[in-house]
């Protein structure tokens, strides 16, 4: 038993290794960043993440960086070094990315353990900070249970024991008038309740994914029964703390520091009660989840899914295969199954394309800004905010096109422009203007017609249109060009 306890304590110490390794950033720092204490910044990173865990506004990387900037500014002042926010942001991001095992090059930590009196080498694979999706587009940072334990200075506690301890401490602190300490303890209690909820959620998630991953014969029922008793006890304690602090609050000056902190404790306890009440419902329904998943999964066909190494098992064999074979794998060899390419591209909604609408949209004139009568320093519209058209040189190019000797082929025009090292946007404009002229409804004095040849030049291909001057009767038949609408 002592051996197991020692191993647990050793592991708890090893969880701090990534923090200590931050010191190795010293070798990568210049004179402008050498004064930043990375471990101090790391703890404040943990603090920022933990304070918003479980709330609607969880901490994103940007939010954490913004939180660190004033602290780094203070460190600059202490070291008498002048720098700027961009510099600080860059360094803060570096520390955060170091804590999030991004590159996956960080190998599991190894240590020597003694089992049955013999030395064995073991691997400890863990993370401290992870970036996770909180919606389809937004991410937030979260701490692992190991990081939370490090942060709470409670290296080796079970969550349940930690909750009992912290709430006992909180109540004691309130009763003895140490309100500031009690507020800090109440924050820790809230974190523990989130941790406990995450633990239960993971068990239910594993059950939904594969019922066989979770031991529902002995381990989980025992855990659930224990959890139900524990949560019931927590709710009672938290209600007691909330009641005690509110009784104290009634005797305090409303705006005093103690009153503010007492209100904070009451809010935190209410949050814990709410979380634990929700968790109680979850625990009561947990067995039902298991039974329904067991029924569903026992009749569901278990498809043997191979988990490939995409580089060694897919990409390399494709590159080594004959071209025809590789193409067959990418396109799909036979009807009934798909090739790799369509699978990776996902779904596409078939759309009906209108060339006329596309060209009209691309050649739309720039939107003119309304000038306002407010004083210049209060204007919110500025010339710099003008919406730039994709082809700002259009008027000059229209004139250039008008002056080109005609008849002339579109392919010749493009080659001529490319030979003069003109940019891609200009080549596009020439093509679009020629296509628009094909429509015949513009007020210019030339038009384009289809020739009998197809051309291909760079990314342009299709009918080689021929530009020619309009005949006099064609010019007279032109409708007036409507004024561009705002």
């Amino acid at each position, binding site marked *: 038993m002592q051996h197991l306890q020692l191993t647990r304590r050793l592991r708890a110490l090893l969880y701090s290794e990534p923090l200590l390794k931050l010191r190795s950033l010293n070798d990568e720092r210049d004179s402008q960043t050498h004064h930043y204490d990375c471990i101090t910044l790391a703890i404040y990173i943990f603090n920022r993440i933990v304070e918003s865990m479980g709330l609607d506004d969880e901490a994103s990387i940007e939010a954490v960086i913004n939180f660190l900037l004033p602290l780094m500014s203070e460190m600059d002042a202490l070291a008498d070094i002048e720098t700027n926010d961009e510099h600080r942001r860059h360094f803060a991001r570096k520390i955060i990315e170091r804590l999030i095992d991004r590159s996956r090059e960080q190998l599991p930590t190894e240590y020597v353990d003694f089992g049955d009196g013999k030395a064995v080498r073991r691997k400890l694979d863990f993370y401290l900070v992870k970036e996770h999706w909180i919606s389809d587009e937004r991410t937030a940072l979260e701490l692992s249970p190991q990081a939370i334990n490090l942060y709470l200075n409670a290296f080796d506690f079970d969550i349940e024991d930690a909750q009992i301890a912290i709430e006992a401490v909180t109540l004691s602190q309130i009763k003895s008038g140490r309100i500031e300490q009690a507020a800090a303890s109440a924050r820790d209690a809230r974190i523990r309740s989130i941790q406990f909820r995450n633990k239960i959620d993971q068990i239910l998630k594993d059950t939904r994914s594969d019922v066989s991953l979770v031991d529902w014969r002995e381990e989980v029922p025992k855990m659930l029964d224990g959890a139900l008793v524990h949560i019931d006890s927590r709710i009672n304690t938290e209600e007691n703390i909330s009641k005690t602090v509110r009784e104290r609050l009634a005797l305090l000056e409303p705006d005093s520091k103690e009153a503010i902190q007492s209100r904070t404790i009451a809010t935190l306890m209410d949050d814990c009660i709410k979380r634990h009440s929700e968790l109680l419902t979850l625990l009561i329904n947990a067995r039902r989840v298991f039974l329904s998943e067991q029924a569903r999964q026992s009749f569901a066909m278990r498809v043997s899914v191979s988990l490939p190494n995409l580089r060694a098992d897919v990409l390399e064999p494709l*590159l080594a295969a004959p*071209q025809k074979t590789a193409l067959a794998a*990418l396109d799909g060899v036979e009807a009934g199954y*798909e090739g*790799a390419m369509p699978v*990776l591209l*996902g779904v596409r909604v078939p759309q009906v394309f209108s060339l006329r609408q596309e060209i009209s949209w691309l050649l739309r004139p720039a939107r003119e800004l309304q000038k306002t009568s407010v004083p210049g320093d209060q204007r919110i519209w500025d010339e710099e905010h003008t919406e730039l058209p994709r082809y700002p040189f259009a008027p000059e190019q229209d004139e250039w096109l008008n002056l080109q000797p005609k008849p002339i082929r579109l392919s010749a025009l493009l080659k001529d422009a490319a030979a003069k090292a003109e940019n891609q946007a200009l080549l596009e404009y020439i093509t679009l203007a020629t296509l628009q002229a094909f429509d015949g409804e513009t007020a210019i004095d030339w038009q384009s017609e289809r020739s009998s040849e197809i051309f291909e030049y760079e990314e342009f291909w299709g009918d080689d249109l021929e530009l020619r001057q309009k005949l006099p009767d064609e010019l007279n038949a032109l409708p007036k060009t409507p004024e561009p609408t705002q």
Partner: protein
Amino acid sequence: MNDTNDDLHDAGRLLQFALQPSAVPERSEEYSRLIEKYLDRTDFREDVRRIADGLGLLIVGEPRRNRSLILAPQPESVFAIASRDYRAAQNYTTEKRLIDGLIHVAIAACVYPRDADLLEDLRTSRRSVTIDEIEKTLRQIVERLEEASRNDPDPLAGEEGLSEAWRIYKSFRETSEGNRALLTTRKMIEKAFENLCDRRCFRKDGKTYQPLPRYQILVQEHAASQIHQAVKRALGTDGENL
């Protein structure tokens, strides 16, 4: 009867939202409500799955609150993008199609460099990748295969289909060196990322491209095993053709 009609209508609406990459529940109350309904009612879930199946669509992964429903096309579905339609160009040769396919597989391989990565929690964001990384990965494999083939005889003239895919990749230049007319592998990788960004599978952040949940779910829950099966089938069950 009205409830059934409402459910069928809602099922259609939910699939319509799911087919639009730009639609996200966070920005649409109706989409969010339909996802909740999908999660809370097994009968509605069944309606959605059956209609999706009828349309040649698969629902990938387990949907979650406030998250999009992710769809994948079944074989020969009208919603699938055939390789030949990837580029709207008349001169979309088989070589270019091959390179585009290899690039997409390489992107997935760089986002998931280890097989264990495919088992990771889908909530965890994957690290960003760059054009340089994709190009480097492909070129490294090409160089290694070229080195291994030094003692092999050269490919037979006129039998291009039998020459290995790596030779085709090698024949495409990495950069244009001022020749804008040249279609290079870097340009093709950039186009692949643009395509994936349009589908809300990736997000561009400066020079890096971060995979979004849609891509993670698609690859981890569906595409990885499917493309592995496709390669095994094309090469033979035990890869004897290698």
